[in-house]
């Protein structure tokens, strides 16, 4: 209860309370309260008048009853009446009742606001304070609207006393938090800043809170405060204790104010004025120095206050991220805390270190503590601290220590708490992918991961390992061998079976030579797990079996037996049943060639965002912040798996590496099947939503949850220049055989392309994705056709509707292209935008090449040779003999040629290894027929390419393009 002045004690209230306390049971208490309520109701009946004392007494009783947990639905009017009393105690009780009991939507709120207004204008400071406290307690929107004009006046007026100023600041802060829009910025905002210079430290403390919140909204308005804050801080930090009298807390001068000032400074970048900066650094150094001094008191409050200031100072240092010496000192200081007795300190130290690890200056310093952190991980009793230790290990990991950290995390995983296992699994998977020592190590690590913590390995993790194995030719054999060995364990996790099934299905042939892993052994090993698995895994294994039929015709019989098994043919699961029936039919009906085409090795996956990272971010939103900060700061990235895999062509829209193609029973070539899918969904209107299926270009469109993979971003030039962006050339040629993909990506911007061509017309959809959280302004992409291209091509660009791309958003632009004559160069796309004040320009080649206007032609051998002979004049033929830049593989070559646009003619050339193709380039002015012959030489790893067309320029250009592909 509120303290009641002596001589003003309310006897009735005291008696009532003691009655309640003496009640022996809940029922007795309820009875006493009912009686009292009936009494108060009879007193508050309309026709009686009560004096102030009685009113106060009964309102007090009601308040007490309410605080005991009973419902009160009357007496509000009497409480409001108390507000207009002149006696302090009566007013106080009235305000108390109102701030506890009155709803913000009560009908009385008008009356209350009027009473508060009167009190704010009162002469007595005590009354003003009561009113301010009430506003701060209720802080409704309506109050904010009605009173925001009065309160700033109180703050800046010279007449108000300190206590009132203090209350007014906090009150305004509360109103601002409730409804920021109703607090008008005015001329008072500047004068609030000057409160930092106030004599009274209490006023300064409350003003700092207010300024901090306001500055977060409009940093510009409060920029002058930085200087004031720094000088105030330096006065506090460097002062001797006697200065601050009441504000020294256990020998620490004004800890709360220091913390608040340090927080305020974190809103702004480091001050530019060197003198100011020096002063601030001096302060921070003093704080760091003080941490080294022996404690002045053994009391826990002393160390708490000291450490609070210290941690806030470290946060500021990290925020500024400009002073290497300070960063390193902070890091060393935190290192001491890592072994502190106090659990909270260890936790905070680890948390701050996570931030430090992302700074390039202190990254090395943080790494020194790796051993301590690993011990903490192993020996710490508190799970939340262990969690932080994991975060820090993840944060400090780089190429030099990845192997060790991953090994430590793997070994810890076996004993880790269940609550953090899934997250740890994701982190290990990401680290292994991000800093691979070599790919065999990567494969080992992930398989180990599945073995140790199979239950916590989400689908994304094993999808990823398959994607990487498929995209990397050199690990395929090793991976097959390792999974084969892993599968031999008597009990292995279902995820392991999935990975094993998939990889053996694709690359089982690579280890089939060994007697110990002959096809039959592989099959029996997989099939021994079959019955223990869930339906999706069985489906995957069925796909593996059909792939085996292709790979190992010698065990076709056994495989068909399995497919024919009633368990599968009549399975209750429709998916399994369909697979079994279709695969069985496929294996019996189709010829070996057809089988080979349908069941050929999965083409490499298109490069896309690391789904694991997205998953981790979704799981822990705060991690992504650190991640983004970290990636933003790192100026150089080590080459990663993603990058190296990025050169491989895209062929399938499968979103998961389940062999989708094999499920299509029609014996159609892989490429055309995926073209069909593209064709179905390539309507321009449907373009934006459909792109979600097409991985990379859609990453920004896929919603905020799927943040863009920030790992594989090589440095891009941000300065304004007319040169082509470094990625442009390389990515450009990728588009020779595909129509969709990522054209360009750096840490700011990602550009995806989705194109379709018909005859001499083409339509490109460009998707500009903003990867940062700040908007791009004046975003203007323009397309130009340099030189003679202007006459050979007609380009129409639809201007963007908006010229600002919001953070994380994506805009789409449609470009229509018409080919008039044959051409060599590509149109130039130049993008200009302003990002956080600086102009950026990126120049790219638009992926429009001559072969895009190809139409495949089918003809028989005789007509081919007829035409071949017709085109025998010197300018019409181009022959090149060159060394293969990719491993020679008949299937991929076929895919590439088909993607390029040729119609392949089988059976024309007597040598089955050779390729013969034909197509017509459709330009508006002319149509150019092209014939091709490609002869690979396996032994020498060479190709001989012969092209004959009716136009010399076309021949040269096509030969150039093809050269880049093989």
């Amino acid at each position, binding site marked *: 209860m509120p303290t009641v002045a002596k001589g003003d004690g309310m006897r009735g209230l005291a008696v009532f309370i003691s009655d309640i306390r003496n009640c*022996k*049971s*809940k029922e007795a208490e309820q*009875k*006493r309260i*009912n*009686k009292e*309520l*009936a*009494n108060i*109701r*009879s007193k*508050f*009946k*309309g026709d009686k008048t009560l004096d102030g004392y009685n009113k106060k007494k009964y309102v007090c009783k009601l308040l007490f009853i309410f605080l005991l*947990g009973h419902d009160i*639905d*009357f007496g509000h009017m009497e409480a409001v009446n108390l507000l207009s009393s002149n006696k302090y105690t009566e007013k106080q009780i009235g305000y108390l009742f109102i701030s506890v009991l009155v709803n913000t939507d009560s*009908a009385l709120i008008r009356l209350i606001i009027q009473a508060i207004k009167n009190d704010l204008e009162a002469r007595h400071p005590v009354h003003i304070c009561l009113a301010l406290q009430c506003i701060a307690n209720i802080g409704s929107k309506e109050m904010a609207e009605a009173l925001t004009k009065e309160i700033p006046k109180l703050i800046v007026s010279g007449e108000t006393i300190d206590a009132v100023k203090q209350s007014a600041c906090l009150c305004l802060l509360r109103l601002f938090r409730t409804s920021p829009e109703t607090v008008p910025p005015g001329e008072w905002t500047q004068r609030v800043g000057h409160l930092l210079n106030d004599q009274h430290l209490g006023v300064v403390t409350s003003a700092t809170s207010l300024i901090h919140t306001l500055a977060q909204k409009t940093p510009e308005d409060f920029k002058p405060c930085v200087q004031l804050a720094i000088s105030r801080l330096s006065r506090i930090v460097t002062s001797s204790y006697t200065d601050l009298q009441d504000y020294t807390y256990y020998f620490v001068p004004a800890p709360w104010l220091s913390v608040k000032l340090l927080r305020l400074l974190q809103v702004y970048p480091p001050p530019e004025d060197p003198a100011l900066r020096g002063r601030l650094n001096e302060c921070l150094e003093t704080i760091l120095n003080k941490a080294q001094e022996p404690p002045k008191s053994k009391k826990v409050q002393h160390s708490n206050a000291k450490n609070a200031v210290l941690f806030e100072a470290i946060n500021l240092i990290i925020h500024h991220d400009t002073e290497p010496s300070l960063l390193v000192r902070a890091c060393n200081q935190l290192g001491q805390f890592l072994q502190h007795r106090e659990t909270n300190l260890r936790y905070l130290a680890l948390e701050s270190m996570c931030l430090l690890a992302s700074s390039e200056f202190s990254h090395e310093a943080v790494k020194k503590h790796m051993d301590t952190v690993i011990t903490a991980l192993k020996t710490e009793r508190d799970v939340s601290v262990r969690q932080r230790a994991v975060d820090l290990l993840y944060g400090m990991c780089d190429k030099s220590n990845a192997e060790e950290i991953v090994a430590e995390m793997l070994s810890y995983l076996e004993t880790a708490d269940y609550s953090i296992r899934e997250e740890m699994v994701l982190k290990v998977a990401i680290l292994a992918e991000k800093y691979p020592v070599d790919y065999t190590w990567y494969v080992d690590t992930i398989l180990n991961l599945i073995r140790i913590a199979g239950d916590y390995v989400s689908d994304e993790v094993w999808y990823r390992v398959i994607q990487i194995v498929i995209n990397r030719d050199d690990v395929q054999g090793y991976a097959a061998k390792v999974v084969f060995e892993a599968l031999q364990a008597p009990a292995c996790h279902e995820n392991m079976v999935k990975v094993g099934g998939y990889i053996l299905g694709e690359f089982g042939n690579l280890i089939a030579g060994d007697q110990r892993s002959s096809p039959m052994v592989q099959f029996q090993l997989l099939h021994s797990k079959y019955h223990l698995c869930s339906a999706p895994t069985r489906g995957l294994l069925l796909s593996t079996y059909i792939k085996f039929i292709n790979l190992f015709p010698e065990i076709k019989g056994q495989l068909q037996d399995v497919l024919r098994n009633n368990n599968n043919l009549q399975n209750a699961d429709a998916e399994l049943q369909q697979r079994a029936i279709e695969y069985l039919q496929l294996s019996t009906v189709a010829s070996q060639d057809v089988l080979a085409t349908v069941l050929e090795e999965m083409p490499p996956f298109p490069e896309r965002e690391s789904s694991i990272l997205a998953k981790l971010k979704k799981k822990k939103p705060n991690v992504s912040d650190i991640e983004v900060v970290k990636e933003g700061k790192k100026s150089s990235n080590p080459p990663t798996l993603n990058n190296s895999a990025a050169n491989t062509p895209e062929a399938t829209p499968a979103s998961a590496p389940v062999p989708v193609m094999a499920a299509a029973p029609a014996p159609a070539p892989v490429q055309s099947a995926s073209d069909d899918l593209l064709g179905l969904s390539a309507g321009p209107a449907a373009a934006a939503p459909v792109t979600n299926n097409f991985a990379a270009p859609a990453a920004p469109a896929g919603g905020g949850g799927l943040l863009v993979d920030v790992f594989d971003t090589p440095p891009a030039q941000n300065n304004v220049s007319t040169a082509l962006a470094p990625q442009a050339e390389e990515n450009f040629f990728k588009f020779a055989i595909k129509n969709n993909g990522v054209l360009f990506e750096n840490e700011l911007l990602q550009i995806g392309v989705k194109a379709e061509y018909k005859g001499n017309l083409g339509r490109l959809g460009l998707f500009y994705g903003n990867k940062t959280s700040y908007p791009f302004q004046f975003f203007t992409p323009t397309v130009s056709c340099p030189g003679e291209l202007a006459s050979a091509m007609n380009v129409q660009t639809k201007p963007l509707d908006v010229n600002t791309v919001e953070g994380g958003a994506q805009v789409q632009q449609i470009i229509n292209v018409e080919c008039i004559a044959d051409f060599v160069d590509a149109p130039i796309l130049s993008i200009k935008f302003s990002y956080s004040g600086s102009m950026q320009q990126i120049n790219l080649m638009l992926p429009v090449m001559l072969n895009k206007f190809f139409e495949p032609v089918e003809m028989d051998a005789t007509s081919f040779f007829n035409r071949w002979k017709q085109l025998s004049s010197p300018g019409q033929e181009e022959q090149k003999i060159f060394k293969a830049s990719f491993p020679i593989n008949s299937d991929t070559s076929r895919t590439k040629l088909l993607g390029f646009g040729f119609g392949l003619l089988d059976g024309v050339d007597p040598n089955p290894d050779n390729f013969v193709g034909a197509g017509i380039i459709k330009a508006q002015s002319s149509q150019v027929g092209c014939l091709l012959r490609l002869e690979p030489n396996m032994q020498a790893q060479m190709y001989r390419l012969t092209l004959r067309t009716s136009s010399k320029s076309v021949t040269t250009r096509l030969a150039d393009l093809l050269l880049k592909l093989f």
Partner: protein
Amino acid sequence: MIGGLFIYNHKGEVLISRVYRDDIGRNAVDAFRVNVIHARQQVRSPVTNIARTSFFHIKRSNIWLACVTKQNVNAGLVFEFLNKMVEVMQSYFGKISEDNIKNNFVLIYELLDEILDFGYPQNADTSILKTFITQTGIKAQVTKEEQSQITSQVTGQISWRREGIKYRRNELFLDVLENVNLLMSPQGQVLSAHVAGRIVMKSYLSGMPECKFGINDKLVLDKSGRSDDPSKVSATGKSSIAIDDCTFHQCVRLSKFETEHSISFIPPDGEYELMRYRTTKDISLPFRVIPLVREVGRTKMEVKVVIKSNFKPSLLAQKIEVRIPTPLNTSGVQVICMKGKAKYKASENAIVWKLKRMGGMKESQISAEIELLPSDKKKWSRPPISMNFEVPFAPSGLKVRYLKVFEPKLNYSDHDVIKWVRYIGRSGLYETRC
């Protein structure tokens, strides 16, 4: 089975704590106090589960009795046991109160040892317990003979009666006690009604008498009526009642009841409950309540309640109390009644009207004016008007037809036994909506 038994006072202090099994730790005592007795909201469920431990509690005045177990016990059994335990304690030292429990705690521990063994309920018959657990302690001069008798009695076939009882006057008291429960709509429509009855006997009979007891149960009469005495059934019209379900004291031979529908037993000595039953059909409701509530504006309400007695004019109902709930924003009440006394009890939010007695086929009325404080809260929910009374007949219509006593060994016959029969009908939850 029951793992332990605790008794608490109203503050949650432990008065008695007896643990029977190892799986119940000391902390169970605190768990119940914190989660049930001191819970923020009132715990209304008699069974509470805290950390895989089940607590079954009942409350008598301000005393909490709680049984604890970690196993899946029959809750009915536990509550039956708790009620039995209360009965036993009451027969030893009267009212259950904190003081009484503190003064008798040695006795209570002794009782607990006897009636619960390793958590399994044992013989809890008061008359038998009193033979070897006395408030003054077992007398030293218990002979060997008597000791062996105790053993043979407790372990024998008829554990509820010892041999060799002799009375000069063979007497038998039989009480039919009924509670009638009712919920009636304002228009006088019966929404639900049932009678819960008990037949309590006090027997002072010599030797090992065999008793046979008959009531006007429809099943019994229908079966035997046709062959024996068809005229009797038709003469009295509604002379038999339909019993929905019943339970018997352990002395009743259930096999005989099942085959012949006759209740035969060797009675325990002293007081015991022979049978419990429940009926839902053809209940004669002793009182009818006719409420009339009128809300006059926002600040005034008028209530008029008429009660009509609905039984033979020769009978007299007693201890009549009508409880009329008042709205929560009542600020004043004026009551006018012709008979009895009526008063507004603010602590209970009700007008309580008391009548000492009232004859059959009469009516009486009360009217009240209630002043209200204007309130913007939702409308008053109008709880039902409830009533308490006691009438000297069985509202279910149950009649005792005969109670025969046979004692072949001793020389007294059925005619020599003096038998007393009494009917008492009380109100259970007797409510009328208004």
